[in-house]
């Protein structure tokens, strides 16, 4: 054994005494010291200076440099992780622009906060004198910098220190960021020393997470390596204190990715004082280059259905399969749209055995990213397979057409429906799925921010509205609505639990022409109808239908020529979304088949209607009404025409107008030259009339950009006359009465020599047949017809059977709605036959009452008996449906009534045209807006017309009542006479006893008149109010109700 120095290095000491030399141990002597690797970060502090951390970092670079040169000289985890963290700081700053633009979400930011030694050492002296006593000397020897910079990451309002600038290594991370190795269940993970970093997750651009994964220089991406090697640490004049980090970086001279000719576009990194970041002469830079790969998402969303290429731009497959029953959302960040300047993104997907590869072509170069459901390395993206996760979503965009005039693209609604197959413990609900919209501003694509439209903003996205959430007991998913106002959009980014995909709608676009259209909208109590005609053409008016779908759904419709377009679209919606889309949105197409006008005048709303009504967010037209049962969350409003709730009516009109807008644009019509006609019942007066006028002025202006002058309003009752006259079905126009029977009211208009002489409206429509008289309970179900058939009626379709059961169970559904449902689906049940067979006398009573009232009114107005009587309105269909389809029989009834009232022998021409409901709209289209307005008249069965105000009736109540009782007696007798004639004519068979009905009609009318005059007139109106309705029908309504129970 040779002599050995008792030292960490052998200096060749002679002898074994203490030998003195003039030179101490220096760093150069120390190179031969064999060091061990160390994995313990807590043991790194080595120097008697408060700034030891800075020297530890320097040491760390020396150690990893040695390791890089000789792999046997392991640096150990402690130093490797420190170097990795410091390199992360460099890389984070290098990619700062990328992160700011691409990965940092709202509330996330990086900031370099300046610390001036002069002023802050004073603060430390004042606040922490003990620390100051130690550091002030060392600062001047160890650090020497006038300024330090703290790299601070802010997230959710909380700051986290990531690093402090260092004149030795550029930056140094805080010791709390050091990590320890945790071995558990045969896996290795890292744990931060300080708990404040537990939730630190900043994704590296090149994969993985900053400060979490250990990544030494050689493993980093080429741009960064070239920046460090060729830009930052290439200078010979770099301060000597950077020696070790420089040696480390320069030790990668043989790295194949580092090239002298590597070109980088760089920009200064700025501090919070807006100064370039310079640390001990080292000027930090950030990449300013276009990074195509950064536009790829780290995940790609795989949906369990095919995406409609007609409606959305979707991925193109290099090797598509016919049986493919899934699709991928575009896995790109929205900023990619800027690269393609609004043109289609040039990308393709190759489906591999276990993965897919997305190829993006830009500037004649191809960029590829592979996605795998279980990525094998950090460069691979992850496939988010919704089918495997048993979750799904769909969305619908309405309208799906853009006007050539950008200003007219002022309203778009997107319905999002999301569902989890495991409703009891859902992973996905509508709350964690969201949309962001983007538009091409001309220069670039900008996000359309969510703003409150009332806050004086030009355009934006309204804050989304969650209309329903999936219940644990229901398969139906939750729904959310987005609305864009005063703007169109070009793309959407969907965010699904943090994973995103790009959706680019394929818009239909209108073209500029000179074509203009007029639309007539008859908003009836029960049904609503729209008709259309092209201006300048003398053609027959058209039933409103749209040529193409007006909603773009994400999913691809079925391709089945046997099914209607609508069925193809609706049947391909995934099960949990189907009912939601049908009930909360609007039909994809109103083709005149599955969905057609007239529709029921009904609104679907969320049951807990605490919020302000808004189209689709909480209310929509119930196109599904009588086809599909609403669910427990929903309520159907069927009385909106007569309710004084302006908001509901407005929503109904708004949706109709939006649909009309789609139609105009599909037909390339000139939107702002459109004309509209709407109809008011004669009984519209006062507040409700001005409410309607206001809505019909404002909404068309807002949606169709037309002025009030382009909107006409005609009387519902007179309109049909012009249509029938145009169609030449009025043979004699000397004296014509048009009787428009609707659900709520019946209108009479008397024309003489083609001019309207008088009009009258009564609140006595056909709904009184299905209603409960004046029973003052909303949920009353005492109507005899309802009770007679409710348990026995059967449908030949299961869905209708179920719907019927549901309606019966829902106490808010009225008897008239249920019976209208029966009648609306009469081809699937035997309600028509039953009513015709068993309630004919009831319908005759209703019919005779109307005729009797009208005849008396005309007579008292000294008008001759009408030569022609024309019926319009859907309500009038009961006449030929349930009394007789034989016009001669019906004419006999009319003649009998006229003979009785006018005297003599009448020979009326009775017209029951096929287009009963449509006639109003059609007539509206043909009525000249210059035509003479019809004088309206209120008839209380007196010839003098002396009853104007309620008080007039009260004061003369006895005389009024006496007159009416006389009329009722005449009516009763007349009814008996008609019944007898019907019996004779064989219209009433032996199963019906007319006497029972006649007796009912003949019962005391005085008492019910007293009762209902009190409840329906005196209690509803003040004495000074004008009474626009007749009191004649008050006891008759009650009599009809009683007759239903016979």
């Amino acid at each position, binding site marked *: *054994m040779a002599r050995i120095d008792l030292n960490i290095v052998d200096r060749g000491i002679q002898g074994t005494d203490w030998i003195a030399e003039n030179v101490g*141990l220096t760093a150069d002597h120390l190179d031969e010291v064999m060091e061990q690797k160390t994995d313990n970060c807590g043991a790194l*502090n080595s120097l*008697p200076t408060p700034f*030891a951390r800075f020297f530890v970092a320097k040491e760390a670079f020396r150690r990893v440099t040695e390791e890089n040169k000789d792999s046997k000289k392991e640096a150990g985890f402690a130093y490797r992780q420190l170097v990795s963290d410091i390199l992360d700081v460099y890389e984070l700053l290098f990619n700062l622009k990328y992160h700011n633009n691409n990965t940092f979400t709202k509330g996330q930011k990086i900031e370099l906060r300046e610390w001036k030694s002069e002023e*802050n050492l004073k603060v430390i002296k004042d606040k*922490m004198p*003990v620390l100051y006593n130690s550091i002030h000397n060392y600062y001047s020897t160890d650090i020497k910098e006038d300024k330090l910079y*703290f790299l601070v990451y802010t997230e959710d309002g909380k700051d986290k220190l990531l690093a402090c600038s260092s004149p030795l290594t550029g930056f140094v991370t805080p010791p709390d960021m050091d990590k320890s190795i945790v071995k558990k269940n045969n896996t290795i993970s890292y744990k931060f020393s300080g708990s404040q970093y537990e939730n630190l997750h900043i994704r590296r651009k090149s994969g993985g997470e900053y400060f979490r994964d250990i990544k030494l220089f050689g493993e980093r991406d080429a741009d960064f390596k070239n920046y460090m090697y060729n830009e930052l640490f290439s200078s010979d004049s770099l301060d000597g204190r950077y020696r070790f980090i420089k040696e480390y970086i320069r030790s990668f001279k043989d790295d194949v990715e580092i090239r002298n000719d590597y070109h980088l576009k760089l920009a200064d990194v700025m501090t919070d004082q807006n100064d370039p970041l310079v640390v001990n002469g080292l000027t930090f830079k950030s990449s300013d280059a276009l990074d195509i790969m950064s536009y790829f998402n780290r995940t790609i969303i795989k949906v369990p259905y095919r995406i409609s290429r007609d409606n959305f731009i979707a991925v193109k497959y290099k090797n598509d399969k016919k049986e493919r029953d899934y699709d991928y959302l575009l896995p790109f960040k929205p900023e990619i749209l800027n690269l393609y300047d609004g043109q289609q993104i040039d990308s393709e997907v190759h489906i591999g055995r276990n993965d897919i590869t997305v190829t993006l072509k830009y500037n004649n170069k191809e960029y590829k990213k592979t996605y795998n459901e279980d990525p094998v390395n950090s460069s691979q993206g992850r496939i988010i397979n919704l089918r495997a996760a048993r979750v799904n979503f769909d969305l619908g965009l309405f309208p799906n057409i853009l006007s050539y005039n950008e200003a007219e693209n002022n309203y778009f609604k997107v319905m999002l429906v999301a569902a989890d197959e495991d409703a009891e413990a859902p992973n996905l609900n509508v709350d964690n799925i969201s949309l962001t919209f983007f538009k091409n501003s001309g220069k670039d694509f900008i996000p359309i921010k969510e703003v409150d439209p009332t806050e004086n903003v030009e355009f934006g996205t309204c804050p989304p509205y969650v209309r329903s959430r999936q219940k644990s007991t229901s398969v139906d998913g939750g729904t959310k609505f987005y609305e864009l106002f005063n703007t169109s959009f070009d793309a959407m980014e969907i965010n699904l639990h943090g994973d995103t995909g790009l959706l680019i709608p394929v818009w239909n676009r209108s073209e500029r022409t000179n074509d203009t259209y007029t639309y007539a909208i008859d908003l009836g109590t029960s049904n609503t109808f729209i008709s259309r005609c092209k201006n300048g053409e003398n053609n027959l008016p058209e039933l409103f239908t749209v040529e193409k779908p007006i909603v773009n759904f994400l999913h691809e419709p079925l391709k089945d020529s046997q099914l209607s377009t609508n069925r193809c679209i609706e049947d391909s919606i995934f099960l949990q979304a189907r009912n939601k889309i049908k009930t909360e949105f609007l039909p994809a197409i109103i083709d005149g088949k599955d969905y057609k006008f007239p529709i029921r005048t009904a609104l679907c709303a969320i049951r807990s209607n605490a919020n302000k009504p808004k189209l689709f967010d909480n209310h929509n037209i119930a196109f599904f009404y009588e086809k599909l049962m609403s669910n427990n969350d929903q309520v159907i409003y069927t009385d909106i025409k007569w309710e004084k709730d302006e908001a509901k009516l407005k929503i109904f009109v708004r949706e109709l107008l939006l649909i009309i807008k789609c139609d105009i644009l599909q037909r390339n019509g000139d939107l702002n030259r459109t004309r509209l006609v709407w109809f008011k019942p004669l009984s519209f007066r006062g507040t409700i009339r001005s409410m309607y006028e206001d809505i019909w002025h404002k909404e068309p202006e807002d949606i169709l950009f037309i002025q009030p002058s382009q909107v006409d309003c005609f009387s519902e009752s007179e309109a049909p006359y012009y249509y029938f006259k145009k169609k030449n079905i009025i043979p004699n126009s000397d004296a014509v009465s048009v009787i428009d029977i609707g659900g709520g009211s019946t209108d009479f208009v008397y024309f003489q020599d083609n001019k309207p002489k008088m009009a009258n409206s009564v609140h006595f429509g056909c709904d009184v047949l299905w209603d409960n008289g004046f029973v003052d309970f909303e949920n009353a179900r005492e109507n005899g017809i309802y009770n007679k058939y409710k348990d026995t009626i059967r449908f030949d379709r299961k869905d209708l059977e179920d719907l019927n059961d549901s309606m019966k169970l829902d106490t808010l559904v009225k008897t008239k709605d249920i019976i209208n449902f029966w009648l609306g689906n009469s081809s699937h049940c035997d309600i028509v036959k039953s009513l015709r067979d068993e309630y004919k006398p009831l319908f005759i009573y209703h019919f005779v009452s109307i005729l009797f009232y009208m005849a008396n009114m005309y007579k008292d107005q000294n008008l001759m008996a009408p030569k022609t009587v024309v019926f319009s309105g859907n309500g009038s269909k009961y006449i030929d449906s349930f009394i007789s389809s034989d016009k001669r029989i019906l004419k006999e009834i009319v003649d009998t009534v006229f003979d009785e009232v006018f005297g003599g022998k009448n020979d009326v021409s009775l017209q029951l045209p096929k287009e009963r409901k449509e006639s109003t709209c059609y007539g509206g289209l043909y009525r000249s807006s210059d035509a003479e307005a019809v004088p309206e008249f209120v008839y209380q069965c007196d010839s003098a017309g002396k009853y104007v105000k309620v008080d007039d009736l009260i004061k003369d109540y006895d005389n009024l009542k006496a007159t009416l009782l006389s009329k009722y007696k005449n009516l009763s007798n007349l009814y008996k006479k008609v019944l007898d004639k019907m019996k004779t004519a064989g219209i009433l068979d032996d199963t019906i006893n007319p006497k029972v009905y006649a007796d009912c009609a003949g019962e005391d009318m005085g008492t019910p008149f007293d009762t209902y005059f009190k409840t329906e007139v005196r209690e509803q109106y003040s004495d000074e109010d004008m009474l626009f309705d007749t009191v004649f029908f008050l006891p008759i309504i009650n009599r009809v109700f009683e007759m239903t129970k016979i």
Partner: protein
Amino acid sequence: MKKVFVFCVGGTGIRVMKSITMLMAGGMSTNGYTVVPIILDPHLDLEEKKNLHSLLDSYINIYKNSINNGTSTLNPLDGFFNSEIKLLSQLNNQSNDTQEPVGSKEKFSSYIKTSNLRADDINNYLVETLYSSKNLDSQLSVGFKGNPNMGTVVLGEMIEGADWFKAFKIHCEKDDRIFIISSIFGGTGASGYPLLEKKIKGAENEPAVKNALMGAVTVLPYYGLKDPASTNSDIDSANFYTKTKSALAYYEGTVLSDYLYYIGEKTLKQVYENDEKKQDDKANFIELVAASALFDFLKREKPETRQFLSRAIEKDVDSLDRSSLGKGYDPLVKSVADYMLLSALAGELPKEKYFPLKKNRGFNESFYKDEPFKALEHFNAIYNKWYSELAQNKRAFAPLHYDDLQKMSGWIVGLELDAKDDSYYLLEMIKASNKDKSDKHSNKFRYFLQFAYDAINYYTSKINK
């Protein structure tokens, strides 16, 4: 009397001081300097520190017993306990409690008053950069756990303005010397050494302090610790060398001592339990060599230029004897051999029935029961344990065969002594007694030590030849 103020910083400083004391007991000379040990370690309850205090008290007691002449004092003896150790408190008649300023369980964060900063004060980031949460949360009473960046703050305060440091400056007189013992790879020592140097050389108002000849021994890594994962310790001996390299590089050009002694090993020879609170590490050869630096320093004059000293051993073996140590270590071997012989004789003599000095010099039963001899026995016991540790540690300092008093010629490995058993030494003690006819004092204990040393030296002096 010239003094040498020996600053013993941290655990290594304590253990080296223990070796210094043992070598002084064995007859190593301080060249006329009174050793004033100043122990600098914030550990409140460290057993090793208490033991050193106790050992020093024992030494001082024995030394006093050896020079006691009733109302006067005698010159120090040649041989055993020939040099004086004096505590700072004895110089100052005040407390020398150097741990008082940090003698609490206060947390470091509280000590530096981080709570005085507002939550949004940017200086919080500086504190976060300098210290980990664990640093800030650690109690000062358990040392700095290998964190000299904390130690430098606390020790700086501990020195600055402390009564004992003032006392040191007062009592440090012209021609007094200063010696600092510390390790470079730990927490307390690594931070204490440069701090002390700065404080001493910065004592502008005390020229005797500022200009005092100053030496220091920097103990480089020589022992290892068990895997820190097993005790959750923050000390990992795996990076002792890296820390040392880093520290030496940091010190480069900043050393202020006139003589800087380096001592360490190229590989960590022994592995101890990794428990900072206990630090009951066995005595180690490197500490013994570090202790020898003080004696070397006290023999040297002020150099013209700063001197860096290091030392070798003749053979790189795990168990060292006189041969493998090399000639330079002979005085050290002799000191240990002599004292171990003294200890052996002190163990045998009370049992010796026919020893003439029993009667002539009063080394009788009463003498052996008297306090001075009991104090020596107590010291001997500590010494024996210390040597036993040295002889069994790695590397082992084992130049003696001391377990068979009938075969004492082999007492020193590789060197045959003429004394074949203990009777040779007893005889030489009688001869020494007979030679000394002066009867200048009546201190039996002093005679005992003197005759024993003369007898032992008679046979062991050949070690130095």
